[in-house]
C-alpha cells in the first residue's frame, strides 16, 4: 500500500492544483473561445457566427497597430531591464556601505501600483509642466520633450515608466543569484588569480542561468499583460499610437459591449503565446531525448 502511494505520489500531490489549473485557466479559455465564435455584445450570447469576430478583428487598424506596438514594447521591456538589472546587481555586489539604502531605492518602484506609476510618469513627462519645464528653467530654454503627444514616440514613454518599475526587481533576482554562489567556489577562483571582470565573466555570470529564467518569467508575461500602465500613462494615446493588445481586449469586451470581439482578441493573444511556447517545448523534448 505504501509503495503504491509512493509511486503515484507526484500525481496525487499535483492533481488538485492541476485540475484547478485546467479548469480555471483553460476551461475558461475554452469558454472565451466559444464566445469568440458568437455574436456576444454586452453580455454573453449563444448566437453562433463562425469566424466573423476574427475577420472584424484583423480588419481593425487599431488591433493591428496594437500588435506592432506590443512587438516594439516587449523587446525593449525585456532587454533593458535585463541589462540594467544585471549592471546594478554587479555594482551592488561589491559589498558597499550604502547597499541597503541603494537597494531600497532601486527596488521600491515595484511597490507602487502600475496605475500610480503611470500617473506619476505622465506628470514627469508632461511636455509643458513636467521635467521638460524644469530643464527649461535651468537655462536650456529650447528643450522640448514632446514624446507624450508624439504619434511615433509615445510608446517609448511606456518603456521609460515600465523599465523604471521593474528593473529593481530584476536586479534583486540577479543579486540573489550572484550572492547564492557558494563562497568556496569564489574563494577558489580568487586563489587561482581571477579578479574583478574575469571573476564575473568566468564564474559568476554563468551561474545566473536560473536567475535569467526567473527574470524572464516575470518580464515576458508582464509585457503581454500590460494594461494598467497604459491606461494611466497614455491611455493608448495619442490616438492609438501607444495602445497594447490587453487594452484593446478590455475595452472591446467591457466598454464597447463587443464581448465577441474582445474574446477573439484574447484568443489571438493566447495563440501567440502558444506559438512560442510549443516550439520551446518541442525543442526541450528533443534535447532531452537526445541526452537521455
Amino acid at each position, binding site marked *: 500500500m505504501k509503495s503504491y502511494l509512493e509511486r503515484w*505520489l*507526484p500525481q496525487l*500531490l*499535483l492533481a488538485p*492544483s*492541476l485540475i*484547478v*489549473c*485546467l479548469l*480555471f*485557466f*483553460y476551461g*475558461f479559455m475554452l469558454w472565451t473561445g466559444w464566445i469568440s465564435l458568437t455574436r456576444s455584445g454586452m453580455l*454573453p450570447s449563444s448566437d453562433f457566427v463562425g469566424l466573423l469576430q476574427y475577420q472584424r478583428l484583423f480588419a481593425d487598424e487599431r488591433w493591428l497597430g496594437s500588435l506592432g506596438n506590443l512587438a516594439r514594447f516587449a523587446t525593449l521591456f525585456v532587454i533593458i531591464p535585463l541589462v540594467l538589472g544585471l549592471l*546594478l546587481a554587479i*555594482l551592488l555586489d561589491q559589498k558597499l556601505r*550604502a*547597499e541597503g539604502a*541603494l537597494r*531600497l*531605492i532601486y527596488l521600491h*518602484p*515595484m*511597490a*507602487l*501600483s502600475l*496605475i500610480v506609476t503611470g*500617473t*506619476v510618469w505622465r*506628470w*514627469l513627462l*508632461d511636455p*509643458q*509642466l*513636467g521635467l521638460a519645464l*524644469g530643464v527649461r528653467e535651468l537655462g536650456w530654454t529650447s528643450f522640448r520633450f514632446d514624446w507624450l503627444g508624439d504619434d511615433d514616440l509615445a510608446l517609448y514613454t511606456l518603456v521609460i515608466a515600465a523599465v523604471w518599475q521593474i*528593473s*529593481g526587481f530584476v536586479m*534583486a*533576482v540577479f543579486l*540573489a543569484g550572484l*550572492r*547564492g554562489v*557558494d563562497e*568556496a567556489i569564489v574563494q577558489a577562483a580568487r586563489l587561482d588569480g581571477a579578479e574583478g571582470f574575469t571573476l564575473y565573466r568566468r564564474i559568476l555570470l554563468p551561474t545566473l542561468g536560473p536567475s535569467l529564467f*526567473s527574470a524572464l*518569467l516575470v518580464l*515576458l508575461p508582464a509585457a*503581454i*499583460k500590460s*494594461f494598467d500602465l497604459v491606461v494611466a500613462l497614455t491611455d493608448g494615446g495619442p490616438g492609438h499610437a501607444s495602445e497594447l493588445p490587453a487594452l484593446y*481586449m478590455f475595452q472591446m469586451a*467591457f466598454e464597447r459591449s463587443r464581448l465577441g470581439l474582445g474574446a477573439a482578441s484574447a484568443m489571438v*493573444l*493566447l495563440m501567440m503565446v*502558444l506559438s512560442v*511556447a*510549443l516550439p520551446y*517545448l518541442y525543442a*526541450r523534448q528533443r534535447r532531452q531525448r537526445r541526452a537521455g
Partner: protein
Amino acid sequence: MMLRRAGIYALLALFAAYFALPLLFMLLNSFKSVAELQRGGFLGWPQAPDLQAWREAWAALGGSFKNSLLLALPVVALSSLLAALNGFVLCKLRFRGSEAVFVLLLVALFLPIKVYLLPLAISLAKLGLAKSLGVLIAIHVIYSLPLALFFRNHYLGFPDELLRAARVDGAGFWALFTRIVLPLSKPVFVVVVILQFTTIWNEYLFGLVFTDRDSRPVTAALAQLGASGEGGVRQYNVEMAAALLAALPTLAVYLLAGRHFTRGLVAGAVKG
C-alpha cells in the same frame, strides 16, 4: 582602486536619481493644494505645505487597509507554499507528463487575468457563492498557481544526491520537503513573496468586483480617487498622498525582505 570605487558610486548615484525622482515628486506634490497644482506647479517646492491631502487620503483609504491585509497575507502565504510544493514535485519527482504540466503552467502565466472576469462571475452565480473576501482569496490563490515555475526553476539546481542521501537516511516525502527543501528555498521565497504581495496588494479590478463595499481592498479605494470623468476635478495631491499611503506596506515588505538578499543561499551544507 579609489577611482574605481568612486566610479561605481557615481554610476549608482545616477541610477538612484532616475529611480528616486518620481517618489520625491509624489511626496512634494502631496503637500500642495489643488489650486496650486492647477496653477501649473508639478515641479517645485510646495508654497504653503499642508497636510490636507493626507487627511483626505487617510479618510478615503484608512478603512480598506485592514481588508487588503486580510486579503494579501493569506494569499501570499498559501500561494507561495503551494507553489513550492508543486514546483518541487514537478521538478524532482520524475513522472510521465511532467513536461506537459510544465508547459501548461508556463502558458498559464501569460494569460491576462482580466479575461476571466466574466466566466468567474457566471461561475460564482452557478455555484451560489456570494461575493466575499474568502472568494477573492480563493480566486487569487488559483490564479497564482503558475508561480510553481519559479520554485521549479530554483529546484533544478538542487543536486539529486542530497535528496537521495536524505531518503537513504529514512526521510519520507514530507520530512524531506519540510526539513530540507523548504529551508533551502529562502531566496526564491523572497522573490515570490515580493512579487505576490505587490501583485495582490495592487490589484484592483477583481478586488472591486468580487467583494462588497465593506471588504474592498485599498487599491479599489485608491482607484475610486483617481477616477472621475468629465465633470469631476481630479485632486492630484490627494491621489498622490493616497498612493503613497497605499504603497507603505509594500515598501515595508521590500525594506524587510531586502535584508534577506544579503544572507544568500546556505548551499554550503550541500556541497561540503
